[in-house]
């Protein structure tokens, strides 16, 4: 009560005119200046909506439910499947892509190139021209990976006969899927679709996938969360740096592969392929993150983000309490370092489903674990720690399974809260690769980008609406 205030030491949060701090400090009071700026991108109406959601019991409770589901999820690599059979609601003439929904005519260069490559891979067309005509004719359905419990890096292309990782959350039973990583250079996910790319995809489908399926079977599944946690202690953030995780995975796999009936030449080729790609684990990391976050999705009233994804044109998010709606804004340009000969002018806007890792509290959010990664933005290890610490201000909690040595083994900040993003203006940080804007050239750099605020302001309005309707 007011009278209780008279018995306490006055401690003031000052929001607005900074000159008011003086009188309080000089007369012995405690005061903290808030570095305030108009929230919700300066839209007073959204700001009002937000204010009514702050510390609202129903939202806090829903977030705890969602966060607990995310935290208790146990993603286990349960096998390798074929997309057309494994993915729910996968059509025969359907191609999945990264990010929120987008029409063919609006897609970016790398995504179009990758789709043409997938049509050739499927054998639906004989050549590039035919494949392009087919893609623009409407004969092929394009849908986001996320609509099929799946994720894919960069263009994120999954066509029916492609092999996919199958990851099961053994706590809740939900499954998540991701395609295989092809390695760096000319790859389908960057829009390359030449004969070498298609040949490699065929090899991955015909030789690598059965070998891996056999190996995983021998292992009886692979717990991914402990592997990710261990990699975080070895300098990975399991988004843009997967060197340690890929090695850990291969270490488990080799003896299993040798116990299968896979011809030794194929085992050797598979081992060489995995050993030659420091990003091999990325697609497993993504599937694990997707499995953990899907467990948290669909809690009415929850303001926790369950997906962030980009299609090269738009950045989109989904929120636990707002169903399957995407909240989108133009995809940002990535700031980073470029391989020799390339500049920002060559870069495609932010692309791919790999921001599922940040959504799950790793990647940029676990940057403190991965000082090497800040080299991409010319930063220092201290910047990496600062970035992780900053993210604690916009998250529901910390994932105690993902501890960070540099932060005295504190858990990684996880469970982005749209309310906190909109209130503070702190945008979720994302570590990512940069694709060339034209199809087929491949990765031209890597760096850091931030999720656009507009996605979160829209989501706040929608969440408030859903809560009003629910009452």
């Amino acid at each position, binding site marked *: *009560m*007011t*009278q*209780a*205030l*008279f018995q*306490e*030491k*006055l*401690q*003031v*949060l*000052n*929001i*607005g*005119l*900074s*000159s*008011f*701090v*003086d*009188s*309080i*400090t*000089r*007369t*012995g*009071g*405690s*005061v*903290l*200046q*808030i*570095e*305030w*700026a*108009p*929230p919700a*991108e*300066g839209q*007073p109406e959204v*700001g*009002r909506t*937000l*204010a*009514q959601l*702050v*510390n*609202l019991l129903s939202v806090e409770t829903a977030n705890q439910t969602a966060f607990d589901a995310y935290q208790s999820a146990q993603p286990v690599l349960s096998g390798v499947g074929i997309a057309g059979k494994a993915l729910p609601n996968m059509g025969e003439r359907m191609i999945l892509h990264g990010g929120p929904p987008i029409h063919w005519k609006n897609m970016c260069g790398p995504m179009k190139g990758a789709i043409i490559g997938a049509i050739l891979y499927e054998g639906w067309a004989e050549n590039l021209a035919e494949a392009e005509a087919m893609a623009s004719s409407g004969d092929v359905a394009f849908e986001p990976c996320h609509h099929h419990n799946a994720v894919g890096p960069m263009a994120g292309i999954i066509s029916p006969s492609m092999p996919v990782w199958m990851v099961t959350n053994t706590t809740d039973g939900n499954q998540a899927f991701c395609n295989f990583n092809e390695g760096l250079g000319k790859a389908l996910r960057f829009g390359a679709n030449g004969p070498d790319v298609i040949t490699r995809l065929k090899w991955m489908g015909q030789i690598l996938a059965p070998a891996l399926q056999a190996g995983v079977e021998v292992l009886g599944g692979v717990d991914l969360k402990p592997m990710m946690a261990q990699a975080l202690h070895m300098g990975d953030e399991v988004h843009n740096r997967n060197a340690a995780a890929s090695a850990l995975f291969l270490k488990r796999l080799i003896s299993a592969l040798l116990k299968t009936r896979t011809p030794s030449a194929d085992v050797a080729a598979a081992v060489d392929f995995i050993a030659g790609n420091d990003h091999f684990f990325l697609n497993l990391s993504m599937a694990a993150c997707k499995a953990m976050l899907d467990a948290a999705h669909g809690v009415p009233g929850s303001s926790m983000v369950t997906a962030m994804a980009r299609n090269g044109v738009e950045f989109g998010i989904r929120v636990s309490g707002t169903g399957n709606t995407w909240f989108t804004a133009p995809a940002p340009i990535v700031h980073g370092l470029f391989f020799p000969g390339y500049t920002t002018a060559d870069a495609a806007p932010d692309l791919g489903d790999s921001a599922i890792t940040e959504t799950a509290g790793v990647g940029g959010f676990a940057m403190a674990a991965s000082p090497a990664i800040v080299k991409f933005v010319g930063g220092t290890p201290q910047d990496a720690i*600062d970035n992780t*610490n*900053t993210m604690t*201000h916009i998250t529901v909690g910390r994932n105690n399974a993902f501890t960070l040595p540099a932060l005295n083994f504190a858990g990684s900040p996880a469970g982005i809260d749209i309310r*906190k993003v909109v*209130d*503070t*203006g*702190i945008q979720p940080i994302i570590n990512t690769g940069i694709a060339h804007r034209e199809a087929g050239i491949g990765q031209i750099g890597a760096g850091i980008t931030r999720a656009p605020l507009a996605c979160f302001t829209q989501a706040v309005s929608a969440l408030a609406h859903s809560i009003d309707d629910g009452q």
Partner: protein
Amino acid sequence: MARATKIIRNFYRDSVSLMQLSSTIAKLPGVEQASAVMASINNISLLQEAGLLTEPVEASANDLLIALQGEADALEAALAAAESALKQPSASSTGNDKSRGISPRSIEMGLANLVGANLALISTPGEYAASEAFKALRLGLNVMLFSDNVELKDEIALKRFAQDRDLIVMGPDCGTAIINGIPLAFANVVRRGTIGVVGASGTGLQQVTCLIDRWGGGISQAIGTGGHDLHRDVGGISMLQGLKALAADPSTSVIVLISKPPSPEVAGKVLEAARGAGKAVVVNFLGADPDRVRRENIYPAVTLEDASAVAVALAGGRTPEARKTSVPSSSITPRASGQRYVRGLYSGGTFCYEASLLLKKELGQINSNTPVEPGDRLSDVWTSQKHTVIDLGDDLFTRGRPHPMIDHRLRNERLIKEAGDPEAAVILLDVVLGYGSHPDPAAELVPAIQKARDLAAKAGRHLAIVGFVCGTAADPQNLSRQETALREVGVTLAESNAQAVRMAASVVLEAGIGGRL
């Protein structure tokens, strides 16, 4: 003459900081006009009105806009200077160990850093203020809402929400409070004591707390409610909460309530609560009939000065006596015929209103921009008519400009203008000290006062200047230093507004030319 603009995207600074920056940049060589604002629609239209902006700009409320006018070759350097001043680390971010992370951006983040916080002091632009106040209340903080332009429906919602949670909302438009001895916003450094004050007016609170300090009393708490609290629809929620808290506070022996007259039902509720307070309650409902206020333990006070004197007497265990006002006759020097009118140039709204009330009784019609009688409204606020008192803190004068307690330029200009009016006999001034006000108001006023007197003298007139300083010895500006400087240029100083007003009236009455003409 050329113009230049610069937009700094997503870069926020508060309006006072930006006004300070604007005035610094305007002083640079070759710059005629300068304005740095957050690029809200309202601010952009202000710049357009001022002629600083002729082209449309693409900017939002989160972008900082600098607009300059002056010599073409000077503008680039001025823009650069402005930008580099802005990029300096904010001096306000005291106590934040940078290595521990970023400074707090929201109330919720602030609470994580200052875990025991119990009050949010909110002075954001009005359109965002209610939202910030709601967040603070939802997080369990009491609120002092300095911001104005908060809608009445928001005020009602905030106060009811707070009341249900045993929290208080001081404001909106609450300029002054002293909680646990800590002055907040525009407040003075007063001795601690046993008198608790609840006031709907910021300058009213400042006057009463300063006079209590001057006359040997002390303040337990001074609670602001904002000017609309006693509106019928708000129902005096904050005043009733404040009264209840002070009644229960063992450190408070006497309670003072200050407001313009509330609506009858609200007045009834407040007086009923006061009657049940179990303590002496001094009530100053400016302009109300004392007999309607008087109860067994309720002491009506006609002026802020009376309220202070009665409270000091009661707190000291004495019976309150009526105060005598002595007019130092030495100040009344002969004036030219035709010098007939009082011209009050106020920075404090409540002082202006009190002056209107008191002068009306003695002199009849008092013209004002904030008149007691609607019919006495000045048609042109920039030009005085007969007896005139103006509140220079009114929105009409402060649009795009700092408050006259911070920036004395507008009042000084008006003072010179009055000095040139052969009908002006006496100038009435308030000088408000304390935190938030100008660091040395006398230094700003003295040259203008000298100039005004010289101007009148050259025309064969003597211009009387009467005023008072609202402040304390412990204020950063120091009461006696300010008073000495003003006396040295011939200002006749009273202790309070009421005394100053009576002196001013006597100047024109003694000359036999005032009265009810």
